[in-house]
């Protein structure tokens, strides 16, 4: 259980190449994380399952209403119409109603946005979901029917090749765009949700009020690291899993060695030592930042 949880946590860390920037009208770039292909496929499968479920329920309901024996033409026509409407309007309805989300997308935390930072227009929603007809339903039809009806020979082959190309399109570009996204100018991103955790320096501010700090570092010791190491240390300190504790042990050893800390630090004190060092380092780097100096990492000599 805990292992699974950590794996999930680790996965939640956004990968740099999956980040896209949108410039808001105020001129501030906002970063969003691209949805993974697997998640998108999962969302479609959930939606399809809901659709098929609804279709089955409506067929049964109509059958019950008209009596099993006499399910006449009207019943069948009704069913055909219901199928038609589900197939064409299910995705559109929800994406319009929920601002770019369907039940499947909501479940997996995905969202459709405009690729160029504009509002997601209803036209874009109509367009991207109309394309499902040729990206999803026709390929499904071709696979299931094995190419029986209507168009013959060469055309059927063409259709098959193109249907498959369209199906595979999201695998062939770095933004995971499917044909509908291309046509509608949309992008599917992960719903941004990050909780505000307690500030790591909060405790030290309290400690300052109560009395002197436990660990005191020299200027040279503090100057050993840069922003990259600081933020890595922050991630480690916020990681509460057992795996995180092991990682902290390794990192702690490295830091002790690098800054030449003389006194031995017992294992139970390690966390408070690292926190104290984090606070000192952050204070130092932030004050440098105010002077316009940003020391990127420990190899950076600007500081």
């Amino acid at each position, binding site marked *: 259980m805990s292992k699974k949880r950590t794996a999930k946590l680790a996965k939640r860390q956004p990968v740099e190449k999956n980040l896209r920037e949108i410039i808001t009208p105020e001129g501030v770039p906002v970063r969003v994380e691209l949805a993974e292909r697997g998640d998108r496929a999962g969302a479609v499968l959930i939606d399809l399952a809901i659709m098929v479920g609804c279709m089955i329920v409506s067929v049964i309901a109509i059958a019950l209403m008209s009596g099993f024996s006499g399910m006449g033409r009207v019943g069948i026509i009704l069913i055909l119409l219901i199928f038609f409407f589900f197939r064409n309007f299910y995705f559109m309805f929800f994406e319009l109603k929920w601002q770019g989300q369907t039940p499947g997308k909501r479940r997996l935390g995905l969202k459709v946005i405009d690729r160029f930072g504009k509002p997601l227009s209803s036209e874009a929603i109509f367009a991207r979901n109309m394309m499902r007809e040729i990206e999803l339903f026709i390929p499904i039809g071709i696979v299931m029917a094995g190419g029986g009806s209507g168009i013959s020979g060469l055309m059927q082959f063409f259709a098959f090749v193109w249907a498959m190309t369209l199906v595979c399109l999201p695998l062939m570009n770095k933004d995971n765009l499917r044909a509908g996204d291309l046509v509608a100018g949309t992008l599917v991103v992960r719903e941004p949700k990050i909780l505000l955790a307690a500030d790591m320096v909060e405790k030290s501010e309290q400690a300052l009020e109560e009395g002197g700090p436990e660990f005191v570092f020299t200027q040279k010791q503090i100057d050993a690291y840069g922003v990259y190491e600081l933020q890595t240390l922050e991630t480690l300190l916020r990681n509460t899993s057992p795996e995180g504790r092991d990682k902290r042990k390794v990192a702690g050893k490295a830091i002790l060695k690098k800054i030449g800390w003389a006194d031995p630090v017992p294992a139970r004190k390690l966390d408070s030592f690292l926190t104290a060092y984090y606070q000192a380092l952050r204070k130092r*780097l932030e004050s440098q930042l105010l002077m316009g100096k940003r020391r990127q990492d420990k190899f950076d000599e600007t500081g």
Partner: protein
Amino acid sequence: MAPKMAKSYQFRSERQENWTRLEDMVQRAEKSGMASLSSAEIFELPHLYQGALSSLSVARSISLDKNVVDYLEALVARAYFLLHSQQRTVGAAFKKLFVYALPAAVRSIRQEMLVTVIVFMLGLIAAFVLVLENPDWYFSFVDQSLAGNRQPAASAEELRDTLYAKQDEVGGLDIFATQLFTHNSKVGILAFALGFALGIPTLWLLFTNGAMLGAFLALFHSKGLLFELGGWLIIHGSTEITAILLCGAAGLAIARHYIFPGKYSRLEALSFYGKKAAIVAFGCILMFLAAGVLEGFARQLVTGDITRYGVGFTLFVLWLGYFLFGGRGAEQDGSL
């Protein structure tokens, strides 16, 4: 006391309350819509958003607390999506589509429409002339499985029967079902989808379908039944063939603007013109539904030639009027 505190800590503790207020509002609005916010909150929302936005800018430059920056980034993105989304109900969105967007999109592809009409007519005329000269050509254009009783060897009487099928023989239902899910809407959608494949297959598809129609016409003409066939075809054909041609035109529009993106980048051109093309194709799906109803039912009920022509032409004029004049006023004053 104060100077000893980290600047970023101070910065955060002064603003944190507004951030969490914004987060709470955004969360509720995401879950149950903007309507779940009180009017005072709605009024406050943009201000809190602006505040969070500037907090983000500042935090990026002064704070090294990764969590705060990431949090603000996510919060601002969520608020941004919320504020910059179109607060339009599903009904209003569909209304806008049918009143304004669809006819405007059709008008925007009129050049492509001209091409598809010409290609379709070329196929039609070529096949008509060839089959009239030599009926052996017939099966080059018409698939055996689709022809049924409609063969050069059939007598005029048999051909006439195919036009006025008795209701028990061919259920309107079967035709409706096949119509809805197979042949013609498939041709249309394929014409559109293959436009994505740079357009050549679309033209070929339109040509062969035109040729098929031409061959039918020639066959019935040779037996003196052209006028009757016309009535049989036009009652749904005026809707259906228009839709196929529109689908083809939409496909061509995608191909054209992908190959010649003009001042845009290819992707921008695709999303600008492709959006319109896809909306046209979506309208065509609904036209195919209408054609299915007409073919399955109206044709069974209306057997008089003149009435058939009347219904077919009336529908054609209605479509034409809708596409040519629909939503023009709204386009100008931007009321939609």
